[in-house]
């Protein structure tokens, strides 16, 4: 029984005094009254014995509350007295020895007091406030009886003389009064009754106070656990809450880790009054790992049960190995120790240990309180472990989805983003997912696109079926166009209700571009193969066609000669008519000159028609052959300006005949270009001729040259309506030739076919449709580029781009040119 409260301490001393008085009176009555010079004992022997026994029992209960030994002794004494009283009260007085004979009232008082002692000394589990109440009541009754006699004693004259034989005796005549005029017996009973009352009251107060403290301790522990974020934070606070409320002086929390087989001290707490030695103990605890079965926490870990050491210091004195902290406990003045396991699903997670400076037997209610606290602590630990695990898992998942290049996001059924990964956040042009959460597609995309996405969402939600890898065009936050492949799946809760959508979207722009490029490349390949096939076919049939052509030409020439002869014309006419370059004109001439016969004239016209057709067929074959077969180049560093000038000279007749003005603008110091002069000359003649043919009734042919680095824009340009075959790259030093006419241009829908064989916009018979095809092939052979585009003001612009020739170190240059040159038997294209 703690007695820190001064009032309690005073009451306790008073109670001890009250209990002590009958003991002393009893002892004096039995053995010391004659030595004191008294004529007779103050109490009869039976009364003295009973009072002394009861007083000692109550004093023992006051001095050592909770002690099993004390309780046992008090109970034993009370039972004996009760039995004795029962025997007296049941009129079996004769069975008792003379010295044990007491009056019935005294026996009744003994019985009541004995019952009170039994109730007060009862073992903890059956103790209660009711016990204390009844014990107190019994004490009051005893007190009342004694007071009644006391008053009776003093308010009435003595009934008999007070002589030694009768004084303080109990019953000698049956029904005689218990107490004589001597005040000692009544006073002894008064004080015994008071002692019982005080003891019961103190018990009750202490019980109630202990109960309150336990409740406070539990509440405080709960509060700590609710407010703490981690076990490390909660540990010391929890110990403080428990120890301060329960008035214990030292506490530790021990935890075991899954990866180690020891307990480690997680937290300690010490009462301020403990001093420096307790600080040493704290240090020792923190440094000392405890194996299973070692020291009190280890014992609790091993048994899984609460343990109580009435004197931990003494317990460890004999076995320092098992109790390594015993000396430290002793130095800190700590005696009583109690440890309770932190159990979760029958598994010991750790141990809570508290120590007190006073030794005391086990307190079941305290242990219950500690059990409740450790249960809460176990829940706290497991909850924190679960939260940590959940948090780790969540962080891992978050890291995974944020590190994936795919867009991953969740929407609720109303289309609001509820989860958004980093890739999708970036795609939406946002820096944080917080800027996306709660918004919809309408906040980020154009209305048409957003509508389309929403329709998909609704389809998935209504049909409960996923959309997998739907390819859709999309505009990025920076305005860039692209493609994504999106999968949308219905998102269900545990009951199977659709609560939203899980969407995974992959940027397939690069893949799409590659597909388009591949498609283009395939088309080009097909085109190239077509060309090659055509070339091989041309080469194959050329020989077979040329033989009959030769036959036809010779026959036509012969007939023309015959007809001319018949018409009186000279044989030279026929011969001239065979001249391919002017066959048509000669035919007409023949007609004019041979006007003797209408039939001959018509026949001559027909023959000339045949000869023209042969020439035309031969031209087609020749141009087709230009396609076929290998055409290695004879590359030489060439001045393009000079080459263009000489090409223009060759077409001067066409320019003049077509009333075409020439506007040239040649760049000075134009870098040379590695070219096969003859082939490039053929290109220019083709292009100039085409330009003249496109300008019916005259126009202007502009030719410009320039040099510089090819810009990225120029390198990448695929002008609307233009067709080019990019070979030069941005940054290349290039020479460009721009040829513009003021003619009809090429219909935009036909631009794409301009380089196809047999494509022509010229009148029937005017062009073979092979000129541009051959031109492009020659340019490509030079690693150059040709672009066609209609000029906004009318006419066509042809741009030729060549890499400027860079003089290499002599040997390399020679090798380079030599490798590009042809052997002697080079086949060249016609000019």
């Amino acid at each position, binding site marked *: 029984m703690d007695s820190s409260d001064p009032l309690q301490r005073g009451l306790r001393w008073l109670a001890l005094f009250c209990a002590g008085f009958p003991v002393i009176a009893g002892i004096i009555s039995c053995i010391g009254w004659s030595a004191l010079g008294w004529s007779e004992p103050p109490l009869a022997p039976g009364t003295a014995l009973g009072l002394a026994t009861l007083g000692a029992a109550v004093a023992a209960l006051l001095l050592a509350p909770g002690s099993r030994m004390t309780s046992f002794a008090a109970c034993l004494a009370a039972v004996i007295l009760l039995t004795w009283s029962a025997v007296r009260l049941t009129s079996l007085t004769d069975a008792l020895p003379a010295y044990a004979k007491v009056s019935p009232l005294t026996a009744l008082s003994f019985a009541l007091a004995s019952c009170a002692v039994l109730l007060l000394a009862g073992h903890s589990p059956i103790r209660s406030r009711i016990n204390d109440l009844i014990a107190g009541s019994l004490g009051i009754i005893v007190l009342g009886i004694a007071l009644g006699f006391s008053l009776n004693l003093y308010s009435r004259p003595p009934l008999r003389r007070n002589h030694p034989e009768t004084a303080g005796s109990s019953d000698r005549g049956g029904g005689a009064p218990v107490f004589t005029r001597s005040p000692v017996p009544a006073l002894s009973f008064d004080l015994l009754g008071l002692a019982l009352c005080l003891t019961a009251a103190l018990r009750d107060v202490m019980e109630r106070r202990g109960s309150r403290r336990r409740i406070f301790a539990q509440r405080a522990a709960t509060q700590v656990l609710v407010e703490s974020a981690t076990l490390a934070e909660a540990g010391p606070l929890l110990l403080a809450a428990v120890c301060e409320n329960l008035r214990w002086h030292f506490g530790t929390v021990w935890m075991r880790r899954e990866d180690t087989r020891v307990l480690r001290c997680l937290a300690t707490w010490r009462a301020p009054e403990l001093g420096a030695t307790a600080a040493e103990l704290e240090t020792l605890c923190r440094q000392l790992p405890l194996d299973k079965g070692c020291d009190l926490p280890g014992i609790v870990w091993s048994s899984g049960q609460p343990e109580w050491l009435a004197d931990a210091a003494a317990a460890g004195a004999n076995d320092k190995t098992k109790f390594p902290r015993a000396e430290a406990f002793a130095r800190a003045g700590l005696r009583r120790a109690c440890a309770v396991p932190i159990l979760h699903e029958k598994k010991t997670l750790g141990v809570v240990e508290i120590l007190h400076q006073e030794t005391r037997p086990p307190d079941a209610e305290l242990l219950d309180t500690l059990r409740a606290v450790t249960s809460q602590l176990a829940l706290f630990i497991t909850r924190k472990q679960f939260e940590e695990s959940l948090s780790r898992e969540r962080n891992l998942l978050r890291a995974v989805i944020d590190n994936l290049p795919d867009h991953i996001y969740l929407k609720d059924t109303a289309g609001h983003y509820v989860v958004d990964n980093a890739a999708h956040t970036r795609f939406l042009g946002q820096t944080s997912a917080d800027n996306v959460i709660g918004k919809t597609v309408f906040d980020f995309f154009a209305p048409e696109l957003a509508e389309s996405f929403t329709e998909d969402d609704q389809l998935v939600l209504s049909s409960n079926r996923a959309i997998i890898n739907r390819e859709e065009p999309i505009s990025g936050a920076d305005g860039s166009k692209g493609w994504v492949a999106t999968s949308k799946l219905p998102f269900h809760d545990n009951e199977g209700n659709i609560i939203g959508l899980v969407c995974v979207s992959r940027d397939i722009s690069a893949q799409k571009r590659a597909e388009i490029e591949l498609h283009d490349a395939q088309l080009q390949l097909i085109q190239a193969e077509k060309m090659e096939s055509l070339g091989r076919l041309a080469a194959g049939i*050329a*020989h077979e066609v*040329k*033989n009959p*052509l*030769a*036959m*036809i*030409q*010779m*026959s036509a*020439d*012969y007939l023309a*000669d*015959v007809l001319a002869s018949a018409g009186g014309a000279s*044989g030279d006419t*026929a*011969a*001239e008519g*065979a*001249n*391919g370059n002017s066959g048509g004109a000669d035919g007409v001439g023949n007609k004019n000159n041979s006007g003797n016969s209408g039939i001959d004239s018509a026949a001559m016209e027909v023959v000339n028609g045949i*000869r023209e057709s*042969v020439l035309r067929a*031969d031209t087609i074959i*020749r141009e087709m*052959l230009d396609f076929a077969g290998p055409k290695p180049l004879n590359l030489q560093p060439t001045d393009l300006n000079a080459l263009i000038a000489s090409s223009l000279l060759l077409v001067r007749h066409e320019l003049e005949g077509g009333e075409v003005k020439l506007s040239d603008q040649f760049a000075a110091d134009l870098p040379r270009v590695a070219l096969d002069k003859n082939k490039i000359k053929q290109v220019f003649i083709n292009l100039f001729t085409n330009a003249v043919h496109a300008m019916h009734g005259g126009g202007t042919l502009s030719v410009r040259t320039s040099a510089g680095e090819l810009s990225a824009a120029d390198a990448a340009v695929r002008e609307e309506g233009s067709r080019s075959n990019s070979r030069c790259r941005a940054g290349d030093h290039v020479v460009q030739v721009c040829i513009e006419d003021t003619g009809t241009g090429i219909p935009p829908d036909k631009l794409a076919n301009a380089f196809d064989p047999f494509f022509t916009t010229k009148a029937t018979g005017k062009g073979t449709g092979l000129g541009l095809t051959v031109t492009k092939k020659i340019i490509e052979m030079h690693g150059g580029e040709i672009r066609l585009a209609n000029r906004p003001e009318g006419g066509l612009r042809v741009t030729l781009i060549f890499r400027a020739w860079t003089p290499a170190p002599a040997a390399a240059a020679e090798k380079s040119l030599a490798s590009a040159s042809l052997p002697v038997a080079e*086949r*060249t294209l*016609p*000019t």
Partner: protein
Amino acid sequence: MSKKRVLIVDDQSGFTRIIKLTLEKTGLYEVLEKNTSAGVVVAAGEYDPDLILLDVIMPGSDGGDVVGLLKENPRTRDIPVIFLTATVRKQEIDEGGGIIGGYPFLPKPVSAKELLVSVEKHIRQRPG
């Protein structure tokens, strides 16, 4: 003045026929047609032409083989030969001045004028 003799060798009989007509119509030439490459050397030896117009691509021996045989035979080695072929283009012939590999070439189709000019240019002039 006796007519010069021309041997025309081509597997197309129609073509040799029209060449014959064209050349003979000038009154300057007498033409023997031969439509296979086999026996050309024998025919040349017998006919002793002043010029041979020789196709290149023919069944059996081609024009090149035939020239080789002609050059091996002392009686025919000096007879001028003009290749008349569809295998070489006019441009290629023009670039070589009408001569390829030391032999004059005429491309098919060829005009009567070009034929006559070439024949006149290359026909053997016999002494006396």
